[in-house]
C-alpha cells in the first residue's frame, strides 16, 4: 500500500528518538560497557613486521605466567575454506581466518598472531611480551602500482589473477581484473573536440569510528555461546563466527550492543572469534577491546587508489567517450571495492561509449573493509576532477555541463542497467538555483562542485510487530541503530497504525529472537527494514480489522482502519487499538504482524555538493568557508537524521580530501596510528554544513524512500579539490591536499608561470 505524501501525520516530522535519553545520560551500553562475573581480559599479540614468514610461536612462558588462563594462535582456528554468504558480497573464509589470526605468514604491521586471556588486563598485556615468535622477514610492498609490477614481492604464492583467460601461470599480487562498460570508446574519442586525461591518487583512509572494536564472549561446556558486541550486523557476526569455528548457527547467539559508529568497518569480524576460542579454552567469559592504535593498524581502512581517467567531449559540450583504469589496494587479502568504483564513478553521466578497467591488488597493509559507498569516493574524485577540467576547457558552467550530460530516467548506467526514475537533474537544478552557488568570493577563495551516486541496497530484513494488551505497539527488528533508525522504524509503523509515534517502541533483537537480517550498511535500513516494518504493521492491521469484525459481529470487508481505530458504517463509536487489544484474548489470542522479505527496488541516490575554500598561499592551509550538500532522499522519514547523514558524509569527505592518510615508514610500519596524527576534522575545522533534501520518490517503497547514508561521502573529495583549483589555479591530483603538498604545488605553479 502506498501512502499519499499530503496525508502523512508522522513520517516527515522530527520526533525525539526512543533511545535518545539513554544516549545523552550515558546509560546506553556499547560494546565495551558489558561485563560478566568471572570474566577474563583478552589481548592480541600483533606483528611488528609488514611481511614475514612465521617460523615458530613459543607460548610456554606466557602460559606459565600466573593469571593467564588461555592462549590461542592461528593453529587453533579450524582450517576453513570456501565462502560464507554474508548477505552482500561473498567473503572468502580462508582469507578471513588468516586475517583474524595469522597462519603461516604475517602480511601487515599489526597482523594478529596470538591471543591471551588472563584474570586482569595488565597480566594479559604482560603475558604478550612472553610469547616468542620466530620471523623470517620478507621484502614488503605498500604502493598499489609497485605491487602490480612483475618483480614486486609476492604476498600469496597461490594467487593467480582472476578475470584473465587463460588463467596466468605465474602468481601475482593482482587478485582480479574486471572490465565494464559498453559502446566503442575509440570511436567516441575520435569524435571528441576536447579530451582531458589525468592520473590521480588517493591514500588509505580509515572509517574513523570513535568506538574501538569490543566484545564479550562466553561459551558453555555444551558448546552454546553468547557474544555481546558492537557491530553493524549481529547476524553476520554469528554466521562468520560459527563458520570460522565450525559451530552451528543456533549455538552462537549474538546480542547487539549499541554501536559507536561503523561506516562499513564493523561488517566483519576481528575479535569475536578469538574471544570465543579463549572462552572455550578457559571455560570463562572473555572481554576483548582494541586500543585506538590496533584499530588503525589492524582493521580495514579503505583502498588507496591509483587511477587514470580520460573523457572527451564535442565543442557543444556533449561527452562522446569516457574511459578509466582503477588500481585499488586491497591490503593483505583480495577484496577491494574496485568493482563498485568501476560501476559508480561515471554513473552521474549519460554516456554512449564507456570502458572502465579495475584491478584488485594485494599489498602489505591491513585487509581493506567497506567504508561508506566503498570505492565510489575514490572513483568520483578522479572523474569529477576531469569533468571539472573539461567544463573549463569548453568554458561551460560546471553545473550546466553536468546537467547537459546528466544521467536521468532511461539513461544506461556504466554497468549496463537502465535507470528508472532518479533525482540527478533535480539536484543539479537545485544547485544552480541555490544562493550559495550565486554568492561572491574573495581573494584566494574558490568554489568547487561535484556530483555523486550510490546504488543503495535492499536485501534481507525480518520484522515482527506485537500489539500489547494496552494497545501500545512493540516493533522487533534486526538492524543495529547506527544513526537514528529506531526512530524511523517507529515512525513508519506509527503511520501505518495511525497512532502517535510514542505508542510504538522499537527493539533490536538478538540472533535468537528474529530471523536473519542483512547488515546495517549499504544505505539499506530505512529502505529494506522499513519496508519489512511497514508490511508487518499492515499485517497486524489486517488482524486488528478481523478482531474488530468479530467484536462487532460484522463482515471484515465492512471494517476500515483509520487514525488508529477500526470503523464500520453500522457503528457510531470506532474500536480503538486499545479497545481491540484489551479483548485480544477472547478474540483469538495475542495479535502480531510479521514480514520477512528480500527488499527489491532500492532506488539509487544522486547528490551534488558545493564547496567554498580559502587558501593561505604562504602556508598551503585550506579553510572550508561554506559547504552545501544537495541530495535526493526519495522521502525523508526523519529529516533531522537525513540531514545528519549528509553532514556526516561531508565531514568525512573533507577529512579525506585535506588531512587524512595512513603514513608508513620505509619498513612498512604505520607511523600515525592515533587521533593525534591521523587528522580527522575537529569541530573548529568546519563551518555549518547546509543541506537541501530533494524528494523524488522511489516507487518501490511505501513512503518513497531512497537510501541516504552513503551518497554524501562521494562528492566532497572532488568538490574540495575543484575549489582549491578555483582558488589558486592548481589541480591537486593526489589526496590528501595537505599544506606541505599544496604549498609545493603553488610554488611550482608560480615558477612555471614566470
Amino acid at each position, binding site marked *: 500500500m502506498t501512502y499519499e505524501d499530503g496525508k502523512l501525520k508522522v513520517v516527515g516530522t522530527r520526533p525525539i528518538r526512543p533511545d535518545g535519553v539513554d544516549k545523552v545520560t550515558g546509560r546506553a551500553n556499547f560494546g565495551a560497557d558489558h561485563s560478566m562475573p568471572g570474566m577474563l581480559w583478552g589481548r592480541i599479540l600483533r606483528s611488528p613486521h609488514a611481511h614475514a614468514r612465521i617460523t615458530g610461536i613459543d607460548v610456554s612462558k606466557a602460559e606459565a605466567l600466573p593469571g593467564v588462563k588461555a592462549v590461542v594462535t592461528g593453529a587453533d582456528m579450524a582450517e576453513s575454506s570456501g565462502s560464507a554468504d554474508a548477505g552482500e558480497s561473498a567473503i572468502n573464509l580462508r582469507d578471513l581466518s588468516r586475517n583474524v589470526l595469522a597462519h603461516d605468514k604475517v602480511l601487515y604491521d599489526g597482523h594478529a598472531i596470538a591471543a591471551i586471556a588472563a584474570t586482569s588486563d595488565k597480566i594479559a598485556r604482560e603475558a604478550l611480551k612472553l610469547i616468542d615468535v620466530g620471523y623470517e622477514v620478507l621484502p614488503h610492498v605498500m604502493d598499489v602500482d609497485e605491487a602490480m609490477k612483475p618483480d614486486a614481492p609476492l604476498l600469496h604464492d597461490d594467487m593467480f589473477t582472476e578475470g584473465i583467460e587463460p588463467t596466468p601461470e605465474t602468481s601475482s599480487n593482482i587478485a582480479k581484473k574486471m572490465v565494464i562498460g559498453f559502446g566503442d570508446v575509440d570511436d567516441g574519442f575520435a569524435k571528441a573536440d576536447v579530451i582531458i586525461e589525468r592520473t590521480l591518487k588517493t591514500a588509505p583512509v580509515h572509517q574513523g569510528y570513535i568506538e574501538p572494536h569490543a566484545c564479550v564472549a562466553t561459551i558453555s561446556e555444551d558448546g552454546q555461546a553468547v557474544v555481546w558486541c558492537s557491530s553493524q550486523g549481529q547476524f553476520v557476526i554469528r554466521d562468520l563466527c560459527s563458520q570460522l569455528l565450525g559451530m552451528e548457527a543456533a549455538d552462537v547467539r549474538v546480542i547487539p550492543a549499541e554501536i559507536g559508529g561503523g561506516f562499513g568497518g564493523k561488517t566483519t569480524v576481528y575479535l569475536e572469534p578469538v574471544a570465543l576460542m579463549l572462552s572455550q579454552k578457559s571455560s570463562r567469559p572473555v572481554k576483548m577491546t582494541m586500543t585506538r*592504535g590496533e584499530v588503525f593498524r589492524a582493521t580495514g581502512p579503505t583502498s588507496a587508489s591509483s587511477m587514470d581517467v580520460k573523457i572527451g567531449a564535442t565543442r557543444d559540450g556533449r561527452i562522446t567517450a569516457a574511459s578509466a583504469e582503477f588500481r585499488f589496494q586491497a591490503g593483505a587479502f583480495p577484496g577491494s571495492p574496485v568493482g563498485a568504483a568501476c560501476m559508480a564513478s561515471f554513473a552521474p553521466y549519460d554516456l554512449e561509449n564507456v570502458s572502465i578497467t579495475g584491478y584488485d591488488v594485494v599489498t602489505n597493509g591491513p585487509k581493506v573493509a567497506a567504508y561508506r559507498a566503498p570505492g565510489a569516493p575514490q572513483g568520483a574524485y578522479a572523474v569529477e576532477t576531469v569533468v571539472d577540467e573539461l567544463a573549463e576547457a569548453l568554458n561551460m558552467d560546471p553545473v550546466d555541463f553536468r546537467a547537459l550530460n546528466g544521467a536521468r530516467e532511461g539513461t544506461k548506467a556504466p554497468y549496463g542497467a537502465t535507470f528508472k526514475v532518479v533525482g540527478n537533474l533535480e539536484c543539479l537544478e537545485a544547485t544552480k538555483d541555490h544562493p550559495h552557488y550565486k554568492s561572491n568570493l574573495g581573494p584566494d577563495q574558490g568554489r568547487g562542485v561535484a556530483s555523486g551516486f550510490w546504488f543503495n541496497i535492499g536485501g534481507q530484513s525480518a520484522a515482527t510487530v506485537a500489539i500489547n494488551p494496552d494497545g501500545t505497539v512493540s516493533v522487533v527488528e534486526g538492524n543495529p541503530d547506527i544513526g537514528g533508525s529506531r526512530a524511523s522504524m517507529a515512525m513508519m509503523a506509527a503511520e501505518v497504525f495511525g497512532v502517535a509515534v510514542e505508542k510504538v517502541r522499537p527493539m533490536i533483537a538478538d540472533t535468537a529472537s528474529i530471523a536473519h537480517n542483512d547488515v546495517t550498511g549499504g544505505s539499506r535500513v530505512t529502505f529494506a527494514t522499513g519496508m519489512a516494518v511497514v508490511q508487518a504493521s499492515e499485517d497486524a492491521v489486517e488482524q486488528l480489522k478481523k478482531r474488530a469484525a468479530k467484536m462487532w459481529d460484522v463482515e471484515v470487508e465492512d471494517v476500515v482502519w483509520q487514525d488508529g481505530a477500526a470503523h464500520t458504517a453500522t457503528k457510531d463509536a470506532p474500536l480503538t487499538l486499545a479497545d481491540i487489544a484489551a479483548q485480544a484474548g477472547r478474540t483469538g489470542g495475542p495479535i502480531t504482524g510479521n514480514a520477512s522479505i528480500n527488499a527489491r527496488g532500492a532506488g539509487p541516490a544522486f547528490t551534488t555538493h558545493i564547496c567554498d575554500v580559502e587558501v593561505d598561499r604562504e*602556508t598551503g592551509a585550506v579553510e572550508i568557508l561554506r559547504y552545501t550538500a544537495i541530495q535526493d532522499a526519495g522521502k525523508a522519514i526523519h529529516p533531522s537524521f537525513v540531514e545528519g547523514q549528509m553532514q556526516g558524509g561531508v565531514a568525512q569527505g573533507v577529512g579525506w580530501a*585535506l588531512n587524512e592518510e595512513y603514513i608508513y615508514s620505509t619498513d612498512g610500519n604505520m*607511523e600515525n596510528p592515533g587521533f593525534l596524527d591521523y*587528522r580527522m576534522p575537529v569541530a573548529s575545522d568546519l563551518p555549518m554544513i547546509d543541506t537541501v533534501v530533494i524528494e523524488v520518490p522511489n516507487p518501490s517503497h511505501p513512503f518513497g524512500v531512497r537510501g541516504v547514508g552513503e551518497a554524501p561521502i562521494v562528492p566532497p573529495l572532488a568538490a574540495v579539490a575543484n575549489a582549491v583549483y578555483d582558488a589558486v589555479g592548481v589541480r591537486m591530483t593526489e589526496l590528501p591536499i595537505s599544506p606541505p603538498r599544496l604549498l609545493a604545488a603553488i610554488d611550482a605553479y608560480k615558477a612555471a608561470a614566470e
Partner: protein
Amino acid sequence: MEYQSPGTVEEAVSLLAGASGTSKVLAGGTDLLVQLRSGFVEPDLVVDLKRIDALTSITEDAGGFRIGAAVSCAELGEHAALSAAWPGIVEAARLIGSEQIQSRSSLGGNLCNASPAADTVPALIAARAVCSVVGPGGQRDIPVEDIVTAPGETSLQPGEIVVSLNLPARPSRSADAYLRFIPRTEMDIAVVGSGVSLTLSEDGTVSDAHVGLGAVAPTALLVSEAGQALVGTSCDDAALDAAAAAASAACDPIDDKRGTVEYRVRVAGVLTKRAAAIAYQRAGSR
C-alpha cells in the same frame, strides 16, 4: 609502580633522589599518561607535584612573574595580569591540545617532556624566561633554552625538579606573540612554532627583540639573528623579511609525519614575520 603525592618541594626532592629504579615527575600528566599507557615508559615511582603550593601558584614580584611549574595552562589564561603582560606566552599555553588538555597541562610539564614541538617553549625562550630548579644540591636558576638538550632529554640532574618559570620585568612598551602552524585548526602537534618578544623605544623603533622557534630542530631554538634583524627598525616589511630569513636559516628540521624539511624552513619564516608584526602592534598600543 608506586604513586606519591608530597606536600613540599623538599619532600619531592628527597623522594626522587632516594628512588631506586626509574622515577617520573607528574604535573598535569597529559604527556606522561600517554607514555605510561603505551608502555613507552614503565616508571617504578611517580611523584605528583600538584599538592605543593610553590608549584601551583602564580606570583608577581617587581614587574616579573613567578609561575609555578605545575600551574595549568587554563589557569594561565584566567590570570588577568599575566595575560596582559605576556599575551604571547598565554596564547601559546592556550593552544596546547584541547580545553580538556589545557585544564591540566603545565609549563613545567610542557618544558620537561622535552618535545622539540612543545608550544610554550619558543614563547618562553623569546621571553628570556628562567627556570628555578631545586634538587639534592639545592636551588639553581637555568635559562629555559638550556633545559632541553635533545628530544626527550633534559639537563636536570637526578632528583632535580623545575619549581617555577620566572618571567623578567620589562619596560612598559613591551609585548610578545606566539604562532604555530598545524594542518587542522586545533588538536595537532606544532609543525612549526614561532615566539617573538620585543620592546619599543620612545621613537617607536624596536630596542630589544628575541625570537624562539619550535619543531624545527632537535630542541627549541633561541634565534638571536632573527631578534637582531628587528632591533632598530619599526618592523617594516624589510625588517620582517630579514627576521624571517634569519629564522629560516636557523632551522635544522627533519621530514616526518607532520612536515617536510623545506616546508618547515619556509613556514618558520612566515610565522616569525607574522608573530613579529603582532608583537610590534601589541607593543605599540601599550
